[in-house]
């Protein structure tokens, strides 16, 4: 009698507890669903009014309620890709150095140091970029690039126009620093996953260290490194404060193609315009739609990169 009562109490306790943790799971899923739902609902106004023009027109005029987000999309794409191009060689080089050239302990210390860069908050990069890097680039690197690359026919177009310091180039350099540890961490892991025998076999056959790296390690780790780079790209696309503080937050009607142009990214446009926008219906809807675009783009890249990284992991556990 008492045994059966306690066993039913046990079952009840288990049932309640599993319901509680299930409720946590469902609530988290609901949060994501409501984020998507709210952004879609609150941007209906501009989706209906502008349609595809939102993506292809370059005029962003809150006063006359004309919203084309092309300059922001352009800013997002150019800063992220340039940041990726700047950061990837350093990340891959460091990843190979810490896993192939130095003892594991020292390698761990070096990569831990670089990965501390992740812990620095975005606004700190913004402060450094706005108060230090902006002026350093404007007075040294920018004029040098303009003088050296400027005269070259097509490439020169990237380095034209007056130098303000708050432009695509400065933001890209800051972003490159910010995504460097992300790419490094993933690259280091996949480089370490390469079976030792492959490399040792090549060394035994008389290959130099570099040849072993180039032929045995890099091809094996390539997919994972690309995945790491994509993770970095996802981070660069969504990065807000550091970009808001260094890109100039302009809404240029005409895109010159120069890296020295001030513009905005999707994220920085939201951060710099939300306060004015939330008071007006259409303006608010336009800014929410920027967020919706950002959500979709970053999620797609994020999932794709996770897929790439996990694929290398799976491949390695089999071999």
């Amino acid at each position, binding site marked *: 009698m008492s045994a059966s009562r306690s066993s039913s109490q*046990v*079952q009840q*306790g288990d049932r*309640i*507890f*599993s319901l509680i*943790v*299930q409720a*946590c*799971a469902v609530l*988290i*899923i609901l*949060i*994501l669903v409501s*984020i998507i739902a*709210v952004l879609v*609902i*609150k941007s209906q106004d501009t989706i209906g009014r502008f349609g595809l023009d939102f993506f292809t027109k370059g005029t962003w005029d809150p006063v006359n309620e004309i919203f084309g987000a092309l300059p922001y999309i352009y800013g997002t794409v150019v800063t992220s890709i340039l940041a990726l191009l700047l950061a990837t*060689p*350093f990340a*891959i*080089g*460091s990843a190979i*150095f*810490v896993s192939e*050239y130095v003892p594991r302990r020292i390698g761990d210390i*070096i990569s831990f*140091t*670089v990965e*501390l*860069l992740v812990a620095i*908050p*975005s*606004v*700190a*990069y*913004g*402060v*450094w970029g706005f*108060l230090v890097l902006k002026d350093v680039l404007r007075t040294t690197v920018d004029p040098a690039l303009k003088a050296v690359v400027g005269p070259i026919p097509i490439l020169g177009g990237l380095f034209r126009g007056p130098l303000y310091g708050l432009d695509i180039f400065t933001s890209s350099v800051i972003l490159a620093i910010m995504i460097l540890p992300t790419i490094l961490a993933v690259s280091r892991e996949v480089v370490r996953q390469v079976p030792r025998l492959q490399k040792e076999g090549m060394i035994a056959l008389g290959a*130099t*260290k570099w040849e072993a790296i180039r032929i045995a390690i890099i091809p094996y780790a390539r997919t994972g490194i690309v995945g790491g780079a994509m993770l970095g790209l996802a981070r660069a696309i*969504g990065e*807000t*404060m550091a970009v808001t*503080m260094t890109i100039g937050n302009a809404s240029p009607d005409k895109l010159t193609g120069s890296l020295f142009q001030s513009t905005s990214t999707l*994220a920085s446009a*939201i*951060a710099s315009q*939300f*306060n004015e*926008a*939330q*008071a007006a219906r259409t303006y608010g809807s336009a*800014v*929410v739609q920027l*967020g919706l675009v950002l*959500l979709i783009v*970053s999620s797609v890249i*994020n999932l794709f990169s996770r897929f790439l990284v996990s694929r290398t992991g799976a491949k390695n556990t089999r071999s």
Partner: protein
Amino acid sequence: MAQAQPLVPQLDRTALISAEKTRYARRQLTNTIASGLMFFLTAVSVSVLFIILAYIFINGISTLFPVVDGHLTFNLDFFIKPPESNLDGTTGGGVAQAILGTIEILIVAGIIAVPLGVGAAIYLSEYGTGFLVNTLNFTIDLLAGLPSVVVGLFVLAAFIGNLALIKIFPHFAGLAGSFALIIVMVPIIARSVEQILRLVPDSLREAGLALGMPKWRVILQIVLPTVAGGITTGIMLSLARAAGETAPVLLTILGQQFISTDLLQPMDALPIRIYKYATTGQPDLIPKAWAGTMVLVIVIALFSIAVRYVTGRNRYDA
């Protein structure tokens, strides 16, 4: 064997060896250049961190520990006073309202995010198979990768002011900032706690169950206490991340200059104050931006190093 000899063409051994020697020298040279390049790339990557930290600390320390009359002093006002207007138009006082706001918003967010995240982690590691688990895993991945400005924008568009779908707050409010930080913290807590729960050996769970404990008591009284340290660091990691987030709080609490603990009114947070002080263009505010950055970086670094230390020695061998 001897008959096979003429089939091999007669080779000029010395020419062959000298050709191979130049090839070998070239390969060695490429190898040296590649090694040098790797070293250079690593050196630049590491030094970038030290350059940024040097700027933050040199500028921050000179604000927090100013030399007055040849004596090193401590700028306590920075921590305990709100901004005050001086007669000459500069701003005195400190950023107390921002520090207070950050702490208050974080505590409120933590009270909700911690049980939610830990609950989800328990579900994933102790219960999970099937559709709901896959959906939750996918959701946590997406939430973790969501740009934080989108989280702030969601809270703004859902709950605040004219734009609101369900108008909970008539204007920017501290509690809305906590809402945003919950969404930032939950995926971090859920992921890290889940990984730590998986370190608990099954033999511990089985021992509890064999003694007749119900599953929920095994989880609460055996599994969770075993990894309490790891769970704490997971929570600290999420707090560190949330403390440094600017965009989600900027879009929800806006920032202001007065000491206020009312969660239904606009509040201030340290990252917001840093952002505003660095970019307003008033030269007297810039040292305070540096000092605030230094405080923020130190707090976050302490959290991160503690996490590294604890997870580094976590071994739950049965």
